[in-house]
């Protein structure tokens, strides 16, 4: 049914030899087919590839999670929701949930407040605007692996920069307990993302119509008052967007805490900084317990969904209270 044109369409190849000026005479059937079928041909590579490498793995994760499925592959057994019922009783899993939420809260709140603060500063008359913007965005181009390696050294117990500044050389081991390792990981995340979020807020601030502020200042509003009563409410969509993105990224945190523990997905001797993604990796690719790890993956997805909805509801109220 497909016309030869559309089926053989090699997407990025050079166009047919006939130039714009020399109009090829085409049958009306070919034109009709081109108009009807071409759109589908253009979007189909995306959907085909996504179906195989995105959608299928997602659904198959669920199928695997209903099995006792080890690497060996021969002895898989359908066990229904047994992996899940085991998971809700699994203290290691809840520990990873606790760690993930802890790091998430410790990183996200300062990150968003810091980004708002920076955006507000960048939104003034400034020289070297591009340099400033590029400066705060610089962390984003550094790989997470690089960030983690450098920060691990900065947080090192014996000769780390942070301990040197705090005067705690040789005494404070940042990896040793929950709060310190969460804080260290949170600073890595914030260092990387605050500038990016600030630019998103800045873009939103610049699209706020100026006459809103003019009217407010005629009414005698202070700068502070204008920030809280005009800027913040007008930024609501941007804040919601940034919060959701940070939620997805923050809850699936893996690279920073792993490398902070020198590549140990166990997250330290007492799993003090093991996140859910690390626990999933440990069960899947250390123990090769694919069924159980898949159940962890779905729980992670569920948690992301729940926290996203909560974040959305919370941020949606911004500005409404005043």
């Amino acid at each position, binding site marked *: 049914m497909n016309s030869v044109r559309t089926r053989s369409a090699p997407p990025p190849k050079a166009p047919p030899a006939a130039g714009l000026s020399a109009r090829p005479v085409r049958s009306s059937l070919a034109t009709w087919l081109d108009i009807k079928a*071409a759109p589908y041909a253009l979007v189909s590579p*995306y959907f085909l590839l996504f179906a195989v490498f995105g959608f299928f793995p997602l659904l198959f994760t669920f199928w695997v999670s209903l099995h006792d499925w080890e690497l060996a592959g021969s002895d898989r057994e359908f066990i229904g929701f047994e992996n899940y019922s085991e998971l809700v009783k699994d203290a290691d899993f809840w520990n990873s949930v606790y760690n993930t939420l802890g790091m998430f809260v410790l990183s996200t709140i300062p990150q968003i407040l810091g980004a708002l603060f920076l955006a507000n500063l960048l939104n003034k008359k400034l020289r070297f605007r591009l340099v400033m913007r590029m400066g705060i965005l*610089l962390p984003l*181009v550094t*790989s997470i692996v690089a960030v983690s390696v450098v*920060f691990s050294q900065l947080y090192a117990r014996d000769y780390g920069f942070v301990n040197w500044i705090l005067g705690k050389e040789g005494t404070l081991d940042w990896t040793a307990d929950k709060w310190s390792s969460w804080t260290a990981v949170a600073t890595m995340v914030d260092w990387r993302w605050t500038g990016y979020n600030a630019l998103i807020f800045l873009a939103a601030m610049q699209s706020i119509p100026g006459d809103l502020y003019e009217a407010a200042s005629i009414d005698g509003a202070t700068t502070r008052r204008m920030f809280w009563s005009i800027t913040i409410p007008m930024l609501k969509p941007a804040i919601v967007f940034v919060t959701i993105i940070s939620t997805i990224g923050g809850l699936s945190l893996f690279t920073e805490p792993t490398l902070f523990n020198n590549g140990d997905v166990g997250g330290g001797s007492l799993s003090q900084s093991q996140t859910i993604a690390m626990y999933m990796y440990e069960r899947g690719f250390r123990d090769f317990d694919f069924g159980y790890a898949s159940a962890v993956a779905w729980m992670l997805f569920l948690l992301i969904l729940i926290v996203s909805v909560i974040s959305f509801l919370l941020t949606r109220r911004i500005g409404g209270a005043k």
Partner: protein
Amino acid sequence: MINRATWMTKVTLVVAVLLSAFPIYWMFIVATRGNDVVSSVPPPILPGGMFGDNLQRLSDTEDAHFWLGLGNSAIVATTVTLSVVVFSSLAGFAFAKLRFKGRNALLLVVLLTMMVPIQQMGIIPLYMLMVKLGWAGDLKSVIVPFLVNGFGVFLIRQYAAQAVPDELIEAARVDGCSTLRIYWSVVLPALRPAIAVLALFTFMQTWNEFIWPLAVLTPDNPTVQLSISRLNSTYFNDYTLMFTGTALATVPLIVIFVLFGRQIIGGIMEGAVKA
């Protein structure tokens, strides 16, 4: 509320920029000095002259396969970027400018796919799939699953909707152009700024990928991030070695960033307003 910046504002911003740059700067200091750098008090503030020695040591550390990793990352990131740009611009153009049944429903599907962290969620079946295809350990396994992404399609769609006038497409049709011809001669030139941003983002993201290569590749055929993490877990007291690798893996991205910083920032801020 566009006020003139006070000196407090300027100082705070300069401090923010310095904090942003410091870890990267520190990386280069350590990479150009000997291992005594980390234990010297106060820490040195200028680069040293030992980069060549460190480079040699890095090359001699055979089990990290650093240069192979660097080459692999270049191949992977370039291939994925080319593919994402081609497929996203084709699909984005169709969604923005062509009329077809089911367009809005399909676009909604694209949006939903953007919300799911596939890398983490689907990692186990994806790994099984790669084993079945015999691709585990091969570069194909870190390329093929990422040949398309929803973000790219959506970005191009948003840009094409306002950058390509419908009249231009109509005129080309009247002239007898096929859809593919319109894409090539009319749409693609107009999309150039968005394509530049998409290409840069995709390259950076692919270059920096970690969890999936860690799962599916082997240490003797790594990407550069895996090489570094191997240095990190095996030689974690040899900071200059690690930091030399890290610095080398960061340089390509910093070069891209300095060259295209204006476009990258423009892309982020423009995308933000529409999102």
